[in-house]
């Protein structure tokens, strides 16, 4: 089935506070709408927002031919413990793997660490008497009676979902299938079942068990959520298919998402990165680092040659990922590809404090939405990052742009003066600027975690800034890392919802294949990939795609023999069409050198996991150019540090910019975000309406 791609497309991004909608016209024109989320039933807010937006634009509901959805519902279900009552059947002797995890915790020097509870309590983690070895050989046959007893107990407990994860099932799924059949028999069709060999047939029992459990735990929740959303949209006449953003930035049908909800755990943050990758590639910014700063966190991710970076080492429910992957262990392992996003607890609402030793700290504690920054006048007394930036004159002192919320910049400055400047013995502007520096120094760590930590030099990248606060701090952070280009896309405040419309339909399949490259052959590898691709073809057919509709890619996760961590490289085909093993090894050596600064050509290269990916490229709305050079704006004093002082800075709308660079200091104020152009930077508008800031550019 090939789908019409000529109609209206709708991107729907829900977060804890706001639901963002972007409607793309067939000619590429964009219409946006922002409303408060309805957490008791998000679908209701979506329905109301969609109805309002369509009504406002005079669009028939039937003219919408695709709805793409990004959602934090799955993450929140894990964070809040609101998943299904879930059971686990595992191999005898391994009942506690889910609870012991990999032991390691994300904090040091603490006697008071509290670990999150496992998603399945011990009483519902039951054992099957069986054992398979690492090559798939059966060391002990499955004792069906042990499974029947487990099924009996799970039935008595009234579980809504069951995960099945047996040792080495990636190498031989037979026992898992038989366990699943017995469970299905006893528990009936309504119970949600997931086998590890179907979801994630790769080695390492904790990570596989945890991922399988997450899928089961979310299954009934996501099935219900997407079902209700469907009803809400049908109710207002929007019958277009719903596609859901996956954590890796691809999109999948609602039906597939309901079957494999573990894939959509990081659906929310993924959309912005995908948007940056596609918009960047289209607009000539193929290498960029994204910076998405909101109210409580700042997130960074890297895009190289238009490709987002993905990681297989991820955890859900771990709170904030403070410093890349050294601090794992706080949450539940999710071993599925996720866009590699590094997060720092610094946002607009982050509290500013002076610690016991007299140093200024920003975050990770946040004033949240209530009481919020002092400037909001909702009872907040502790200064926040937002109050400091207001004090500097960088934000509109009278109202939150576009939000209609009156704010009190005087109260903000007073809090900064009393709580921070007085203690430091400094001038209030100086103190506020110091707060900005500390916050940027902290956020810089998120940017480093996705660049220098991976052997990438940030100076080779543009900083692609969005989210409510990203464009405020982007140039300041770029300065710290000697990055010379910042890009602020149109509609930066709802950019994630726009990113949803730029995603391709993607499905992937993976399997463990632990073998030295020198001990396998092109034909053997090809056969394994073909097996994966046959499975993918069936999945894609179920989604309505024929073989000609999608492109296939092969990836391999490789390492030097003896290492524990892999790097993913594409698998090139040789002249005979079979995998070119020498080229794989060479690509791995190059990637290893690029990432870690050294390679070891004398050491054997080992394959760990093979992946195949099917992609349907969707056509993407191209932005409709708008005329620039509008005459508008005013000016206000803004402080840029002792050297630059506090000049009177022009405040203009985006439309006032042109292709000719205009020198900073300059503030670009829009309804959903503010872009700050410090002294020493210039700003111009490119053909795609992006604001491009350049360091040391000539105005």
């Amino acid at each position, binding site marked *: 089935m090939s789908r019409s791609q000529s109609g209206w497309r709708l991107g729907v991004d829900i977060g804890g506070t706001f639901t963002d909608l972007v409607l793309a016209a067939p000619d590429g024109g964009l219409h946006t709408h922002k409303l408060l989320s309805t957490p008791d039933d998000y679908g209701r807010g979506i329905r109301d927002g969609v109805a309002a937006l369509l009504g406002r634009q005079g669009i028939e509901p039937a003219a919408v031919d695709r709805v793409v959805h990004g959602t934090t519902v799955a993450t929140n279900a894990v964070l809040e413990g609101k998943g299904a009552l879930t059971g686990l059947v595992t191999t*005898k002797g391994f009942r506690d793997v889910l609870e012991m995890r990999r032991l390691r*915790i994300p904090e*040091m020097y603490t006697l008071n660490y509290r670990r999150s509870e496992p998603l399945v309590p011990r009483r519902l983690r039951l054992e099957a008497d069986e054992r398979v070895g690492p090559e798939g050989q059966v060391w002990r046959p499955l004792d069906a009676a042990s499974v029947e007893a487990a099924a009996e107990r799970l039935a008595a407990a009234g579980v809504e979902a069951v995960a099945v994860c047996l040792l080495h099932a990636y190498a031989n799924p037979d026992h898992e299938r038989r366990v699943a059949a017995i469970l299905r028999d006893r528990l009936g069709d309504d119970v949600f079942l997931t086998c590890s060999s179907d979801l994630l047939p790769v080695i390492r029992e904790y990570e596989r068990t945890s991922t399988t459990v997450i899928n089961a735990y979310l299954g009934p929740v996501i099935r219900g959520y997407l079902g209700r959303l469907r009803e809400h949209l049908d109710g207002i006449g929007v019958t277009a298919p719903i596609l859901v953003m996956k954590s890796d930035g691809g999109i999948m049908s609602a039906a597939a998402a309901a079957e494999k909800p573990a894939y959509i755990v990081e659906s929310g943050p993924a959309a912005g990165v995908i948007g940056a990758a596609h918009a960047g590639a289209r607009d000539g910014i193929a290498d960029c680092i994204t910076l998405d700063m909101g109210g409580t966190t700042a997130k960074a991710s890297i895009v190289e040659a238009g490709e987002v970076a993905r990681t297989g080492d991820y955890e859900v429910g771990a709170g904030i990922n403070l410093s890349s*992957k050294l601090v794992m262990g706080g949450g539940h392992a999710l071993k599925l590809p996720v866009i590699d996003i590094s997060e720092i607890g610094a946002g607009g609402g982050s509290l500013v404090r002076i610690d016991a030793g*007299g140093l*200024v700290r920003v975050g990770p504690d946040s004033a949240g939405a209530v009481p919020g920054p002092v400037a909001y006048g909702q009872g907040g007394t502790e200064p926040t990052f937002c109050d400091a930036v207001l004090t500097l004159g960088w934000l509109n002192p009278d109202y939150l742009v576009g939000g209609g919320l009156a704010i009190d910049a005087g109260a903000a400055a007073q809090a900064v003066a009393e709580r921070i400047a007085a203690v430091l013995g400094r001038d209030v502007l100086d103190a506020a600027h110091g707060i900005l520096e500390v916050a940027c120094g902290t956020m810089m760590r998120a940017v480093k975690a996705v660049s220098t930590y991976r052997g990438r030099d940030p100076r080779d990248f543009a900083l692609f800034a969005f989210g409510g606060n990203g464009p405020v701090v982007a140039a300041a952070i770029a300065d710290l890392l000697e990055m010379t280009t910042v890009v602020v896309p149109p509609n930066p405040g709802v950019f994630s919802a726009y990113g949803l419309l730029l995603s391709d339909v993607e499905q992937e399949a993976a399997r463990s294949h632990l073998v030295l490259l020198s001990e396998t052959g092109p034909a053997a590898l090809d056969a394994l990939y073909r097996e994966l691709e046959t499975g993918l073809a069936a999945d894609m057919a179920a989604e309505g795609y024929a073989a000609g509709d999608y492109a296939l890619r092969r990836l391999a996760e490789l390492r030097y023999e*003896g290492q524990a961590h892999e790097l993913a490289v594409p698998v090139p085909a040789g002249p005979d069409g079979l995998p070119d093993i020498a080229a794989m090894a060479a690509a791995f050596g190059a990637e290893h050198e690029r990432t870690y600064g050294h390679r070891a050509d004398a050491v054997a290269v080992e394959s760990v996991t093979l992946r195949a990916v099917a992609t349907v490229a969707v056509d993407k709305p191209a932005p409709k150019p708008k005329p620039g050079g509008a005459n508008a704006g005013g000016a206000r004093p803004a402080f840029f540090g002792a050297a630059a002082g506090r000049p009177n800075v022009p405040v203009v709308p985006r439309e006032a910019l042109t292709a000719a660079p205009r020198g900073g200091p300059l503030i670009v104020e829009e309804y959903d975000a503010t872009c700050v152009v410090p002294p020493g930077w210039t700003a111009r508008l490119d053909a795609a309406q992006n604001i491009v800031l350049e360091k040391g550019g000539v105005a």
Partner: protein
Amino acid sequence: MTRARLNARLNARLNTGRNADPIALEVVRNALSSIADEMALVIMRTAYSSIVRDSMDYSTGLCDRHGEAVAHGLTMALHLGSFPDGMKALIAGYGDDTNPGDIFVFNDPYTAGGMHLPDVYIVKPLFYGGELEGYAATLVHQIDMGGIAPGSTAVYATEIFQEGLRIPVLKMYEAGRPNETFFRLMHANTRVPDKLAGDMRAQVAACNTAERAYGGLLERYGSETFRTILADLHDYAEAVTRREIAALPDGQWSFIDYLDGLGDDPEPIPLKVTVTIDGGRMIVDWAGTSPEVPGAINCPSPFVKSAVQLIVKCIADGEIPNFEGFARAIDIRLPEGTIVNPRPPAACAARAIVGWRAIDVLLGAFAQIVPDRIPAAGEGGVTFPAISGMHRGRQFVLSETLAGSWGAMPDRDGTFGIPNPGGNLTNQPAEMIEALHPLEIEGYGMVENSGGPGRFRGAPAYRRQYRVRAPGGVQMVMRSDRRRILPYGLDGGCPGTPSWNIVNPGPGQRTEPVMPMEAVRLADGEVFCHIGAGGAGQGDPLERDPALVAEDIAEERITADYAAAVYGVVLGAAGAVDAQATDAARAELRKARGKGDDPAPAYLQMFQDSLGLPDFRLEGERRMVYAEKEGD
């Protein structure tokens, strides 16, 4: 000095003694720790041996140009104080002969400030504008450095000469050129030259990563300002530490705990600490600790210093930064010739056991100072089996770091399945072990009816069971503890349950000592089961909330008969607590207390019975402390 005056003095120091900008201090502090983390990531992802890549037994750090630590990666807590002594030895030996492109290597405890021979230090001096500005330092537990047993951690060595290759401070690279003599010597003195070379490469790569980033900071601030910032950060760390110490009550507290001892007929080995708090100063004196012993558990001083520093960080209310300045506030006294400061040529390969016990001893002392922050004793540190043999024509060594049972906190049960506070180590996936070694992991999980009872109970013990699947069999070097001298309880909580090493569990089983003085040989098909010690409890078990006991039964952590015998908790038909029957049962249990010497409390007897080891002997075991409450 009064507390107020001391605080005033500290504030004055903070505000006047500082030359650099507090904003710059915070930014640099963050930047340095992110570099140390970045180094740690490079090693984690590129190392070749399982103990590094999966157990993460390594550390990374940065030192200033004086060799004083200014950052430590988020890796192994017990390595915290491991760099200063080595850096002193390096600077003493090469202060005038350190040049760009040099890279140093060492491991020797007695000439180079090392800890034991497997811990190999690789350090790169960092230059800016031709001047030495700092050092990138790495420390990796290498899988084999030669010596009497595979893994180089034999408990049964009696002199360091039996333990492997001693490396004094040497240049492995000189002005960028590899020192081929060193590499050839190294290659010839290890059982696994490829892995050793690979892991050393990872260390060098981490140093090179740091070099680039550290240079970036110097570029940004300039050498003079940068040096001032570092000096101020040392002062800052000292001030924060002194303030934390000053917040503790003044006085002197001692605590003594024991290692079970060596071999088939072990003699308990005492570790004693006396902590003195005097205003903003702390003295930690180890007088009273056992002299050196004729086994490889003598612990060169850096590791014990690390234990002290890490516990001070653990009990601090706020965060103490990893700047060596913080060590100035703590006076650590380690009498020479004792197990915590041995003299050459005392063997020390398995010395970590002393570090783990030092943590227990320190926590026991601090439990008297700040009881609300301290857990009862946990499993007693990492059990360290090194299993070796032949597989697919090559020699293999599998070392594991097993842990995971904490003692109870004053307000909640001990956590199960997290690392000992001394080392943020990981376990290794059973599937990966089986894919790479001729072993089957038969089970890994919780032992039911284990751990020390209490108002809050200790975490249950863990069990790890191996089956040999190697036609030629394997040998195993084993370092464990806490069988006869149990983890101590606090505030009337019961001691934890003992650890065991059992061969072929079931009828006909045999046990091995906690620290056998020879390699244990296991034939094809034989089974080895290690059970870690269970965490100790806090508070009287008869005061435990019956609902928590019912939850433990529902979660199958304990059985109903255990609950009745140990906690006096009786459940009714639907699994709910029968309050009346519980009151009666508890009254009976209280009455039975103090009636002479009960050699085996019910919880220990039930635990032992379940292992088929009903006859056992405890030594130096603490008296059941709840008996002291009889007079209340």
